[in-house]
């Protein structure tokens, strides 16, 4: 793809003058792309043959990549005989064998079953940190905040063609610069309510307000958006009544969509909890981890200190 303006260089070399196949970049796509009529071994060896490497070097690299992705014993299998997870490992092994300086992973796990995703996520991280410890760049794109956090490193948050925030993943998690970043980097999305600070209460709606945490005592009494994560909500006696719109189970957690009047929020609780739709449950919101954004939706107070 051509860029409309700007420059793209790698180590001082103008990348725009270098054809794609010479760029020393390896890419893994969402949809596992392999040569279906080749064996596992040939799939990994193919780009190396095109590069004109000698036979023993190809063999060394292919065997190493196969070992790295844990596909020993599958060398002579045909691609069609493999599961989705195994096919994605072949695609990954092919990129690793190229020993590129730059590895681009475009949502590599999105098409896999959650059980496989769980395993591969862990393997990928270990694998990549062992291969790319000091040299080289790995870019991993994902819509899943959990993947981004687990992958660690530097995070670039994008939305509608714009970079919203960049920095170490933990930093972005603890200090989302805007409401939009807080939405994108949390799954379920961070709960955001507009509220008016009145004394020591955030007034959200008639009959619905939240205590202002002591750490926010310096905030001026005006309009804010308060934010809290799904896991800071508990179903507990003595809480405010909310109606269950739907409860969904994800892995070992239950995601509960709740509503009180016009105000909605999403809670995430540990374990598998069965709730009926339209059932009323008492809910408590833990304000120890409450965020405050100003009326321009910029972060003004994070529970992790350092006010922006």
């Amino acid at each position: 793809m051509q860029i409309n303006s700007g420059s793209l260089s790698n180590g001082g070399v103008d990348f725009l003058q270098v054809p794609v196949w010479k760029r020393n970049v390896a890419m893994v796509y969402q949809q596992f792309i392999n040569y279906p009529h080749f064996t596992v071994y040939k799939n990994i060896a193919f780009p190396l043959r095109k590069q004109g490497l000698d036979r023993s070097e190809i063999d060394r690299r292919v065997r190493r990549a196969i070992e790295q992705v844990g596909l020993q014993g599958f060398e002579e299998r045909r691609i069609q005989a493999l599961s989705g997870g195994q096919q994605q490992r072949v695609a990954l092994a092919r990129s690793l064998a190229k020993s590129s300086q730059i590895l681009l992973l475009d949502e590599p796990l999105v098409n896999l079953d959650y059980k496989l995703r769980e395993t591969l996520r862990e393997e990928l991280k270990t694998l990549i940190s062992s291969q790319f410890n000091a040299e080289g760049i790995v870019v991993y794109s994902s819509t899943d905040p959990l993947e981004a956090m687990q992958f660690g490193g530097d995070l670039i948050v994008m939305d509608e063609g714009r970079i919203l925030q960049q920095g170490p993943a933990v930093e972005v998690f603890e200090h989302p610069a805007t409401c939009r970043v807080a939405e994108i980097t949390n799954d379920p999305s961070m709960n955001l309510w507009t509220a008016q600070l009145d004394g020591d209460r955030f007034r959200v709606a008639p009959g619905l307000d939240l205590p202002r945490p002591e750490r926010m005592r310096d905030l001026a009494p005006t309009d804010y958006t308060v934010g809290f994560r799904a896991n800071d909500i508990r179903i507990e006696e003595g809480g405010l009544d909310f109606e269950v719109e739907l409860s969904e189970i994800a892995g070992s957690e239950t995601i509960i969509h709740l509503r009180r009047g016009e105000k909605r929020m999403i809670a995430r609780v540990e374990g598998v909890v069965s709730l009926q739709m339209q059932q009323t449950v008492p809910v408590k919101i833990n304000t120890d981890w409450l965020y405050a954004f100003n009326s321009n939706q910029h972060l003004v107070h994070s529970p992790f200190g350092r006010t922006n």
Partner: protein
Amino acid sequence: MARIDLEGVQHSYGGVEALQQFDLTWEDGGRYAILGPSGCGKTTMLNIMSGIIQPTQGRILFDGRNITSLATAERNIAQVFQFPVIYATMKVWDNLAFPLVCRDVPKEQIAKKVEEVADTLSLTHLLDRSANRLTADQKQLISLGRGLVRDDVAAVLMDEPLTVIDPDLKFRLRRKLKEINERYRTTLIYVTHDQNEAMTFAEKIMVMDKGQIVQMGTPSELFERPNTTFVGYFIGAPAMNVFPATVKGEHQVDVGGSTVTVAPNLSQLTDATSLKLGIRTEHIDLQNSSRNQDPDHSTLPFKIDRIDDFDTYKLVIGTASGHVAKIKVDRNQAVHPENLFMTFKTQNCCVYANEQLVEG
């Protein structure tokens, strides 16, 4: 609508057994999911109920009536497939009415039923539109609607019906399906390989593996008391922690030199049985002391290998009495590696003999 019984059903494809013999009841009005990896026999099970396949052995009863030899068309089963099946040249209204027109239902009755179903599925504003102009999820709603217009349908069978639907809309459709089940009390049987979808949708889930029914239970039963170590692994993320164990006493097992108290009586087990102890990470606490005065608790020494940072939690990966264990802790909980122990309640321990849960 009807209760569906499968008695002594078994099926083979040319000598290869696809379904091992089983007895099973689908209660009238239930909301079920059939869950399992591909090739486990899920689709064979559906096809036997709808009559597309005649089982090698066994009988199928609808409300006690033997319908084993009846053809698909005579069975009053509605099916929704992965990809929407619609009559592209017809309007939405005619698509929904079609099953009733075919059965010579009086006109006024058809109109009433079509409008009611369209209302439930939020299709009313599309009734005059041509069906082939609609989005994939609207088309899938029509496929479903055709199953709902008939009062005599014994069950609606759905084979991965949300595959073609956008993630945002999946949420809406799942909600719709639950509403429909509650409103019409139509038996819904939903086939999927996606654990989350099954756990979210169903009141009861049937887990299948290698042609066998492994467990039938509510989502929380599958989570808390998995029948086999496979279910313990398959349901929940991270998977259940499973440790090799040996019998120590009537209600005690030995895990790598530490004694753990368990609920079931183990005196009947022979030495030859392979024994395992399963504990969900959700039921484990990490503590920096082995002192454990509570008789309902057991402890195992724990050594940390590494800690993975997730969004709102940390996953502590290490070994308990020499065996790999994964423990989820809150993101804000400090973990000190010295003298670390994992503590858990007796009631949350599952004992597996030859991979099968020991009851008690």
